[in-house]
C-alpha cells in the first residue's frame, strides 16, 4: 500500500509541476460555462443531448492527457532504475493508473462545479435546472468514459511504447460510432445514447423547437420535466449494459496492462 501511495503521489506531483494543468483548468471552466450559457439554459428541453455531447468532448479530451505514465519513465531513461526496485508490478501500474484517473476526474469535476454554480445565476431562456440533472448525468456519462479511456490509453501506450498508437485507438473508439451513424449498436458506443430523444422534456420541446423564448409557464414545465426525467428516463437496459461494459473493459485493460508490463519488466 505504501508503494501505491508513493507512485500515485509522484504522478500527481509531476502533473502539478507541469504547465498543462493551468491551461486545462481554464479550458474545463470555459467548457462548463459554455454548457450552461450556450446549451442547457438556452434549450433546456434538450438537456440530455447537451450533457451527452459535453461529456463526449470532455472524456475524449481528458483521455488524451493520460496513458503516458509508464512510457514516460522509459523516455526519461528511468525504467531500469525504477523497475529493478522491489516494488510490485501491479502496484506500480495501479498507482500510475489511479493517479491519472484522479487527475482527469478532478478536471471533469471542475467542469461540473462550474456548470452547477453558473446554472444558478446565468441568463437564459429557461430557469435554473438545479444541480441534480448536471450531477447525475455527469456520473452516468463522464465517469465510465474516463475509467475506460484512462485504462485504454495506458494499455495502448505502455504496450505499443508509442503515445501515437493510443491517440489513434482512442480516436477510433470515440469517433467510429459517429462516423458509422446507426451502423454500430448503442451498446458499443462510448457516448452511450445521446441521440435518444425519449424523455418527456425532449418530447415536449419537439413541439416548440422554433420558439427561442417560451412563456414562463412552459419554461417552468420543461425544467420540471428535466428535473424528474434526466437522466432517469435514459437509463434503459441497453444504456446500463453499455456503461457496465465500458467499466468492465476499463478494469480488464488495467489487468492486461499489468500482465503486459510484467513481461516488459523482464525484458520481453
Amino acid at each position, binding site marked *: 500500500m*505504501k*508503494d501505491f501511495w*508513493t*507512485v500515485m503521489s*509522484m504522478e500527481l*506531483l*509531476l502533473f502539478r*509541476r*507541469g504547465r498543462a494543468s493551468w491551461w486545462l483548468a481554464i479550458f474545463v471552466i470555459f467548457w462548463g460555462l459554455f454548457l450552461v450559457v450556450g446549451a442547457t439554459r438556452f434549450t433546456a428541453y434538450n438537456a440530455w443531448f447537451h450533457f451527452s455531447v459535453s461529456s463526449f468532448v470532455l472524456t475524449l479530451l481528458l483521455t488524451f492527457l493520460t496513458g503516458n505514465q509508464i512510457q514516460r519513465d522509459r523516455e*526519461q*531513461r*528511468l525504467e*531500469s*532504475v*525504477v*523497475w*529493478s*526496485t*522491489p*516494488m510490485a508490478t501491479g502496484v506500480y501500474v495501479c498507482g500510475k493508473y489511479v493517479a491519472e484517473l484522479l487527475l482527469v476526474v478532478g478536471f471533469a469535476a471542475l467542469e461540473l462545479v462550474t456548470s452547477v454554480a453558473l446554472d444558478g445565476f446565468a441568463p437564459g431562456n429557461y430557469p435554473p435546472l438545479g444541480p441534480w440533472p448536471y450531477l447525475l448525468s455527469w456520473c452516468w456519462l463522464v465517469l465510465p468514459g474516463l475509467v475506460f479511456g484512462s485504462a485504454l490509453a495506458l494499455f495502448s501506450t505502455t504496450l505499443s511504447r508509442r503515445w501515437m498508437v493510443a491517440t489513434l485507438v482512442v480516436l477510433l473508439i470515440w469517433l467510429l460510432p459517429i462516423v458509422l451513424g446507426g451502423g454500430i449498436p448503442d451498446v458499443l458506443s462510448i457516448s452511450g445514447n445521446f441521440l435518444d430523444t425519449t424523455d418527456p422534456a425532449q418530447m415536449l420541446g419537439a413541439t416548440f423547437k422554433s420558439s427561442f423564448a417560451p412563456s414562463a409557464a412552459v419554461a417552468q414545465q420543461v425544467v420540471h420535466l428535466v428535473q424528474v426525467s434526466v437522466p432517469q428516463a435514459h437509463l434503459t437496459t441497453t444504456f446500463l449494459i453499455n456503461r457496465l461494459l465500458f467499466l468492465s473493459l476499463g478494469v480488464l485493460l488495467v489487468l492486461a496492462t499489468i500482465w503486459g508490463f510484467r513481461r516488459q*519488466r*523482464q*525484458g*520481453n
Partner: protein
Amino acid sequence: MPTLSIDRVSKQYEKHFWALRDISLRMESGVWGLVGPNGAGKTTLLRILASLLVPTKGVVCWNTQDIVRQPQALRRELGFLPQEFGGYPRLTAREFLSYIGALKGVGGALLRRRVDMVLEMVNLSAEASRRLRTFSGGMTRRLGIAQALLNDPRILLLDEPTVGLDPAERVRFRELIATLEGERLVILSTHIITDVEAMATDIVLLDRGRVLWNGTPMALQNDAAHAVWEVTLDATAFERARSLYQVSQALRRGNQVETRLVTPTSPHATAVSVEPTLEEAYLYMVSQEHPVQPLLPSP
C-alpha cells in the same frame, strides 16, 4: 557472505545472435570489474543480474534464490546504475532520491538520513534543491550513483559509472567504492581500465558473449608477462610496427618514437621486455582473440 552464482547463462536476441554464451561465474563479496570490447555482452549480463532481462538459458542465483523465479529477494538488496540514466526534470535531486528510496522500501527518518548521506557521498549536497533539468551530464551521473546507494545495497551493479565525470569526481568515485563498508558485491562494467585497476579485486573479461578470462588484476598482469615490449624506433619503423602489433603507448621525440608493443614474441632486435600494465594485459588478452589486422600500406 553475499554470493551471486551464474550458471551457464546465455541470452539470444535474434535467431542467429547470441549476446551471451554459456557464462558461468561465482561472484562473492568484493569489487568485480567487468571489462571487454564493445558488444562483448557486459550490459546484457548486468541487465540479467538486475532482473531486467530473462536469460534464454541458464540460471542466476542470488544467495541460492533464482532471480527469475524470485526477483524480489535480489531487488530488495540491489543498487543499480544503468548505462543510460535520467530523471524527472521537474523534480529536485532530493525529491527524486526520496521517490527512488521509497520504492526501494526505505522510509521515514531513515530515508531522509540516507538521502542526505548519498548526496554527500557524491558531492551533491549543495545541489539538493535544484531541479534536475538544470543538472549537467556529470551531475546526473553522480545522482545515478547516489540513487544506487540509497538502500545500502549488498549487491551494487554499476554500468559505466564514471562516464561523463571529471577527473576529480572520478577519483572521488573510486574512493567512495573503496570505502563502502560491510560485505557486499560490487560489479563494475567499464571500458576504463584505470578504474578497474584502482578498484577491482577481481576481473571478468568478456568478449563476444563469452568469458575470455577471469581472475585477479595481478593474475591478469602475470598472464601477460613477457608480452609487452618497449622499443625506440624511427618513424618509418614505427609505422611498420604499428601495422603488425598492438601499440599500447607511443611518445614521439623528434624523429624517434618511444613505444610499447603488446605481442608474445619480440617485435624488434632492440626491444626490451617490460612489466605490463593492467591495460596492456587487457589488450594482450583481447588481441589473442582479435589479432591486429595489418594496416593498408600508405600511398
